[in-house]
């Protein structure tokens, strides 16, 4: 029996900001939209469809191209162009991702932004269109750390 002091909690939950460690998006920050822990050997529910992965993974949404810095001296058009950001959606293995203490509080329509989106290009485009709303979050000044490029 554990003392109340040690109540261990799960790390990989929806909203958790992670740093992508490998692949094309290595070094980018992303946050978990939906988490899939490695299912037991005979679990068939939950993952309807074909995408069953034998490892813990998450659907993450991240920033591919970070918005640039703007200064006061820049005109409106210039500033608008520089604050564009390009997001990405990806299903990532937990081993290829480093969790951080930050959390992003956004949700996307789970009927559009889900694993099924990766099955065909049209679904993916729809999902990306929804995820574009991340730019609004940046402009609103939320989650500043998430929208700054990780320097390494």
């Amino acid at each position: 029996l554990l003392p109340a002091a040690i109540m261990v909690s799960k790390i990989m939950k929806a909203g958790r900001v992670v740093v992508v460690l490998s692949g094309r998006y290595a070094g980018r920050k992303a946050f978990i939209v939906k988490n899939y822990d490695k299912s037991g050997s005979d679990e068939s529910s939950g993952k309807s469809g074909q995408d069953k992965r034998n490892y813990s993974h998450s659907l993450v949404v991240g920033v591919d191209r970070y918005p640039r810095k703007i200064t006061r001296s820049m005109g409106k058009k210039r500033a608008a162009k520089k604050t564009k950001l390009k997001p990405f959606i990806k299903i990532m293995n937990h081993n290829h991702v480093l969790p951080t203490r930050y959390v992003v509080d956004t949700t996307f329509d789970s009927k559009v932004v889900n694993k099924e989106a990766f099955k065909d290009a049209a679904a993916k485009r729809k999902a990306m269109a929804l995820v574009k709303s991340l730019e609004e979050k940046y402009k609103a000044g939320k989650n500043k750390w998430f929208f700054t490029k990780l320097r390494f």
Partner: protein
Amino acid sequence: MTAAKKASKKQQENINSRLALVMKSGKVVLGLRQTLKSLRQGKAKLVILASNTPALRKSTIEYYSMLSKSGVHHYGGNNIELGTACGRHFKICSMAVLDAGDSDIVRETAKA
């Protein structure tokens, strides 16, 4: 031996005996991969690191433990000694206690 050395030797023996008990009666995972896995899933109650774990690895494991609120114990010996303490014929740099069984190792390291 000085008093400080005697005290730390006693502590070390304590940890070793507790470790032996956990290995026998509880559930433990050995090695970096499984330690990280158990930390991510929130199954690790206590993480034990050998003294010669590379600094980066030590930091990442400590960070994971901070996120999952599990305990970290820096074992007073290197990976060879930790392996011996666990009764194994290989080196162990990082391990996690999932279930302490009859041992009080999780409680005791939390106090310290």
